[in-house]
């Protein structure tokens, strides 16, 4: 379904180059829900943008259904972290959800049906006429999710979508994602920096190293499919997996794709203090 092969991304700047992604290879099967977790600043967003066709990789490729991704592919929807900046402030909720559908020319009736349904499943049936800025952060992110749902994507990419909402809303939204995934049979890649979230949500968790990034571990989450905030999170297996991922992230902070220090390609994650003591 979704193949990432030898993916590398180097940002070329005026004074220095930053290698964000070193060499990433993984595969996501159709209908899977995979979480991607890593230490902060490890290039998660860069990876997601490469996969969404919004950023061209330096080397390697992303394939969707066997076809290389050169630009944003149809059938893929992205939900960004900054809900406040990804919704159109000049459109009401309904138009925000409907806009991407216009291009598909589905006919008025079908379009209305999709929008109504999408807003209903995210729990916003009574907010059609509201403007995004009249809603709370969690509700705004629900609008962004509804827009993705109405688009009927085969793949849903989510870039730390709940990083900016409060803990209670976050738990609700996590369950919403599980529910939508079950109902729609869509393939989901969920990027997060939250270890609990990475364990709770997915069937698999890809743990990334720090930048320049490689896949440090591909972990199967063998929790039962039926999950809920109370019981799943208090189960012994959840605690084990959580501890394991936590350990891996701690390790990841000191490991990267660098086997030997490269004098040309500098590491973005090195703190200035560290550089001083080295020189």
């Amino acid at each position: 379904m979704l193949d990432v092969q030898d993916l590398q991304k180097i940002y070329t700047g005026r004074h220095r180059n930053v290698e964000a992604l070193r060499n990433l290879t993984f595969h996501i099967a159709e209908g899977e829900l995979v979480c991607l977790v890593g230490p902060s600043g490890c290039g998660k967003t860069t990876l997601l943008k490469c996969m969404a066709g919004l950023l061209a990789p330096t080397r390697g490729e992303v394939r969707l259904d066997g076809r290389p991704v050169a630009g944003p592919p149809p059938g893929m929807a992205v939900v960004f972290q900054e809900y406040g900046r990804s919704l159109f402030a000049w459109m009401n909720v309904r138009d925000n959800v409907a806009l991407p559908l216009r291009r598909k020319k589905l006919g008025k009736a079908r379009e209305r049906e999709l929008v109504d349904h999408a807003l209903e499943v995210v729990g916003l049936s009574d907010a059609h006429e509201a403007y995004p800025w009249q809603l709370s952060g969690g509700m705004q992110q629900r609008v962004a999710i509804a827009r993705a749902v109405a688009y009927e994507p085969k793949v849903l990419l989510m870039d730390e979508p709940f990083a900016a909402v409060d803990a209670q809303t976050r738990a609700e939204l996590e369950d919403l994602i599980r529910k939508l995934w079950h109902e729609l049979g869509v393939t989901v890649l969920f990027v997060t920096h939250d270890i609990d979230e990475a364990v709770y949500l997915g069937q698999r968790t890809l743990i990334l190293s720090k930048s320049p990034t490689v896949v440090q571990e591909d972990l199967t989450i063998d929790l039962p499919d039926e999950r809920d905030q109370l019981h799943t999170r208090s189960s012994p297996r959840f605690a084990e997996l959580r501890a394991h991922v936590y350990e891996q992230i701690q390790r990841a902070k000191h490991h990267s794709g660098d086997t030997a220090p490269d004098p040309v390609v500098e590491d973005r994650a090195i703190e200035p203090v560290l550089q001083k003591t080295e020189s």
Partner: protein
Amino acid sequence: MTALSVLRRGLLVLGLPAVLFTVWWFATAGSTDFYFPPLATILESFGKVWTAERLLSDVVPSLLRLAAGYLLAVVVGVGLGLVVGMRRAVRDVLEPVLELFRAIPPPVLIPVIMLFAGIGDTMKVLVIVSGCMWPILLNTVEGVRAVDEVLGDTCRSYGITGVARLRHLVLRAASPQIVTGMRQALSIGIILMVISEMFAASNGLGFTIVQFQRSFAIPEMWSGVLLLGILGFLLSLLFRFAENRALAWYHGLRRAQRNP
């Protein structure tokens, strides 16, 4: 809005003008100065001069030229602003030239424009365009350049490109800035409307005022100045009304950001 707050607003808006008029009235009452006649005399001549016939023959042509020049400036300014704002290469090439043209005061261009556009309405409209265009153009460029990156990515990932992107994203996102430019352009437009009519004109508000001045019809001249002031006030009121409708989302967004 309650009736009381409407009254309060009305008092705030009309308070200072009322005071100024009162001061003017008493300061000039019984004035024998030929150039500063009593306000009573000016008001009296106002009624006599600005008859329906006069409004039709002099004020309407002025306003039509203003409307034509202003709308043309909006079309050219926004159109060019979109291109310049979205294409870096175009911006690099055009910027020095635009800065040069912007620095030339439009009244200076009147004799030049006369050379190729004659002394008719075309000349006057072009003078208005040459002044109104700049604030609209420059604000549009700034607005287009400031379109949010995440919103841009959102559009791309949903395949909203080309004309749809221009219409639903770029123009709307830049609209608060464009409106700012249009507001500045409106006052420039009114000034240029009058100035362009002081050269080689046969009708219009500016022409009439200069005509009165040259024939020493001083109260009549003052009544023309007064009418200009009132027109400017009404036009800005109209503008504010249109702006509040078109940018209701923006004002709401700003309020929401101020009190989260």
